[in-house]
């Protein structure tokens, strides 16, 4: 998989998370180009110009939150990408919503580290091969 991933977008309003997340993702996808934006609106603008292979999307953000980004993307025609919702929310309704959204591969709870990214990707592959 790693060889196919060329561009990754990280969307979060937390500067520190963006720094730490970038470090983690660089280790997993050393060849990929990593982009960061601080909220949903900038994410959508970015995606207008650039196709990415993976997007890590925070839910709770100013201006436009993660759910609103997903709503907007559902209306757009775009290249297929793997979207992982990343959150520190414990609201069970967030997990239900993520599971039922066809665009979302999986929900990853913060902190974002190598192991939970790997297990999310594995889970997706398993469900797809069924």
């Amino acid at each position, binding site marked *: 998989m790693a060889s196919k991933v060329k561009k990754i977008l990280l969307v979060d*309003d*937390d*500067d*520190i*998370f963006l*720094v*730490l*997340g970038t*470090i*983690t993702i660089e280790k997993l996808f050393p060849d990929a180009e990593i982009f960061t934006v*601080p*909220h949903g609106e900038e994410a959508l603008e970015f995606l207008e110009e650039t196709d990415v292979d993976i997007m890590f999307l925070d839910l*709770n*953000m*100013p*201006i436009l939150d993660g759910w609103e980004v997903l709503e907007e993307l559902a209306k757009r025609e775009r290249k297929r990408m793997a979207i992982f919702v990343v*959150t*520190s*929310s*414990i*609201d069970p309704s967030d997990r239900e919503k993520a599971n039922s959204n066809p665009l979302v591969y999986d929900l990853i*709870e*913060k*902190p*974002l*580290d190598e192991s939970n990214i790997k297990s999310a990707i594995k889970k997706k592959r398993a469900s797809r091969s069924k």
Partner: protein
Amino acid sequence: MDASQLLESINQNINEGIYRSDERGLIYVNHAFAKMFGYPSEEEVLSRSSLKLYKEPSERARLVEKLKAFGSFENEEVTLLRKDGQEFDALISSVIYEDANGKIFWDGAIRDVTELRETSRLAKASDRLLQNISTNINEGIYRSVLGKGVIYVNDEFVRMFGYGKPEEIYDRKVIDLYLNPGEREKLVEELVEHGAISNREVELKRKDGSTFWGYMSSIKTEGENGAIYFDGAIRDITKQKESDEALKYYASMQKVLINLSSEYINMPVELVDESIVSSLEELGKFVNADRAYIFEYNLDSQLYSNTFEWYRKGIRSVIDECQNLRMDQYPVLVDNHLEGKPVFIPDVSLLEEKESREMLQSQDIKSLITVPMMSDDQCMGFVGFDSVRNFRSYTEDEILLLKVTAEILVNIVTRSRNQKQLEKLLVTTNMQNKRLKDFSYITSHNFRSSVANLIGLANVLESDPTNKEYLGMLKTTTSKLNDAIDNINELLNFENEVSRLEPENVNLLETVNGVLELNNQIIKENEIEIKTDIEKNMIINGSTTYLISIFNNLITNAIKYGTVEGSKKIEISAKKLNKEILVMIKDHGLGIDLGRFKEKVFKLGSRFHSRESEGQGMGLFMTKQQTEAMGGRIDLESEINKGTTFKLYFNG
């Protein structure tokens, strides 16, 4: 038939006694004569001495002397005697003659007037009786002539119409006696056509112009020369009519009360308020008042307010002027109510206590009545009725019925109040639950993000322990964690306080100035221009702590997000509305796109500015909660690149 035969025939057939007599005695009598004196035949009469025919025998000599002196007399009244000795009154007419020999004789006619006398005596007696009746009965008796007017009235008639003597009435026009002249014309038409009217209710007019209700009967009679008389009687039924009307009045008032009580028994609470007003309308119209209202006392805060009001079309509503009045302000009303007594003021202008008088006069009230609403010996408020157009007095019975009304209303208001409290409690509890749930998610989110960052930072610092950048991030993260803990405290305190929030009177200007003082440093550093326009003695009924928190939030928000280079003005103003005080905090900064974000502005965890990510989405959420906890509301206007205005409405 010769002349002497004719004469004899007449003599024998007429009813008068005819006779011829000379000085010695009777020479001739006719049949009627004999019959009149009770003799079986004329012969028997002639055989008797004519002196025996008189009650006083001397009478004969007197009459003969009169004849001799005057030659004749007419209708001399004498008392005569029948054969059986019974007396009778008679009128005698006679003429004296002289025959060829110079001898005198006389002819005469006697009319028995006993019957006539009796009739006239009876007539006199009945006249007197009529007179007596006329004078002594309680009805006004009259005779009037069509086309002429009244020609006779009795004493009662004179009294009834308030005149001094009958002649005053004879000089008047008949229509002056009627309130409505058309009515007299109608009655006359009917009398002429049908001959009689009976027991008509007519409104009549006294000499002084006052009116009364009369019961009138009359018959038409035709007199000589075709004159038409109306004879009639009038009875004054004003009293009867008044008591009839009073009876009707009470009956319908009871109906109003029964409606009132039965209407509410099963009424859903959400409809109660509306129908209290319509009941006030019904009662108000019933007692012919111009306003009907309910005031409720709040014994804890010692304030009272007009909570329901009906007012007549064309009369001014005063409910807005009557909010949060101090209970010690108008003792005339309040003190009596607290003792359970109704207050009736027949003439407001005569009230001695100046403050109450002026307040009532400012509402154009002439008379008013208020009845306390008592619940278990406690006065909850009062029901009242204002008279603005006219003065109004109330009878004991009416006051009693109003008391019953007040009792019914107490039950209704208590029931509705309890139910509303219950509903409010439910809403508050639900809101509190939701708030706590939302809050626990958002705080845990905030905690977990910080903790996640701490874990990540710990990892990177392990491999690069001297990295200054990571150490800076560590510091930021820990202080964010601290903020999250502070927020938990704030919210928990809010939940505790909201349940026992005691409203107090807070000076608005002092509070705002205090908040500005707190932020003095940051205002100076950022060269922000603050302009306040608040009246010195403006009071908000609420909590000082909340108000400080609210203004602090909104002012620091305005400083952080509402100022841009070259536009650093923040305006804080307040004005008094009807029942509320409106406070506006206006900036000229970037503004918020309300088309997109209106729904999210006050939501927990919402943020609008990515420029500085220190916000946790707590500020506006708490501001709204605190404003609403004090019974206020918050709204905002905003335009992108022009600025934002927050509008707060508080209880004044």
